[in-house]
């Protein structure tokens, strides 16, 4: 991010930026950076809180009034513990969905696939409410329907040479986009349910309490063992978040 700012300034454009990873700003030393103490993925702090977001933007814009730089300024307003407007003080999430039982670690892959399709179906009402309420969805980059995405993931778990449902992208890319669509479908649905859940609570639910989570852990194992480097990369880096793999070091939020 800091490097981009320097490129733009060298092209005659004034810049100011939000910084999430302070050491990167310190190393590249962009002209103006506002470091914010928010979690990765939320540079404006709180979703659906225009007032909070505008305070962050205004603080970043005000750096343009500085007479000299480079400068890194720390933003001190923290995200409220009760987080999003309308949040209720609850421990964990309410989850009135009739989920299929979680397959154990030794369950045959075919059983996971069947349970996955049932789970996708069980979440559909909540996903539909989410789309209706928010007026949008972020599901879709794979170009597959959510059922197609689920079937492809299930098929891949059973046979890594399973036919790819798209022929205009590499198979590893289709697989990645398919399971990211599934993750988005699940998390969009669950965050519509009553009560409040932090991002890490949602992530714990996804990877510890759902069939999709079990499928993704199994996918990670398969990809890491696959001789194809593209699948190996997915397995090492791009299926399970690091804070799920290293829970000892997990963040507090």
């Amino acid at each position, binding site marked *: 991010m800091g490097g981009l700012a320097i490129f733009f300034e060298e092209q005659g454009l*004034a810049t100011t930026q939000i910084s999430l990873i302070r050491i990167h700003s310190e190393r590249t030393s962009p002209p103006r950076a506002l470091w914010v103490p*928010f979690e990765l*993925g939320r540079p404006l702090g709180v979703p659906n809180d225009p007032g909070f977001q505008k305070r962050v933007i205004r603080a970043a814009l005000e750096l343009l009034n500085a007479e000299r730089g480079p400068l890194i300024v720390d933003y001190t307003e923290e995200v409220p513990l009760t987080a999003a407007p309308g949040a209720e003080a609850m421990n964990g999430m309410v989850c009135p969905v009739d989920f299929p039982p979680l397959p154990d670690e030794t369950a045959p892959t075919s059983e996971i696939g069947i349970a996955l399709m049932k789970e996708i179906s069980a979440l559909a009402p909540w996903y539909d409410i989410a789309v209706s309420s928010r007026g949008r969805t972020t599901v879709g980059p794979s170009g597959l329907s959510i059922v197609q995405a689920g079937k492809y993931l299930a098929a891949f778990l059973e046979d890594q040479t399973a036919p790819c449902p798209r022929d205009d992208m590499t198979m590893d890319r289709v697989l990645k986009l398919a399971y990211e669509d599934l993750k988005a479908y699940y*998390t969009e649905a669950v965050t519509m349910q009553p009560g409040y859940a932090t991002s890490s609570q949602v992530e714990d639910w996804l990877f510890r309490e759902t069939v999709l989570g079990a499928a993704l852990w199994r996918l990670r194992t398969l990809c890491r063992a696959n001789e194809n480097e593209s699948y190996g990369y997915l397995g090492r880096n791009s299926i399970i978040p690091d804070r799920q793999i290293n829970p000892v070091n997990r*963040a507090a939020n």
Partner: protein
Amino acid sequence: MARLEDVPLGERKMMETLDCSGFEGRRPWVTGPPLHKRRVALVSTAALNLRSDAVYERDETAFRVIPGNVNAGDVVMSHSSVNFDRTGFQQDLNICFPLQRLHELADEGVIGSVANFHFTVSGGRPPLDLEDSARAMASTMRAEGVDTVLLVPI
């Protein structure tokens, strides 16, 4: 959470070892008109793209254009990293691409105007890899009278 000590060990190592070299001694400092007269564009590293655009490939250094009048439902994300929260983005595009907030600030007279076009790249690469894309984005921005860029990470 973006305090480094709160980041899980593996991700922290990647952050600490990302190659940020190539900027030593490069200290450009562009000034401009008063804030209330500036024309502002957004640049995001969240690998956002329109549904009608190609998704980002892993390690891609090209950029995508997001029109200033975009419908939030037309914006999706194809970043390869799994180590940041996406639930905020799912609930509110403004959490990482605050286009609506910028328009409101323009309406309030805080800034002069909002650009017609905004840009995204896929972050996580050594920043020097993005120089060609940055030049191309800057050229487009200057052509429509943009004088100020607000950069937003993911």
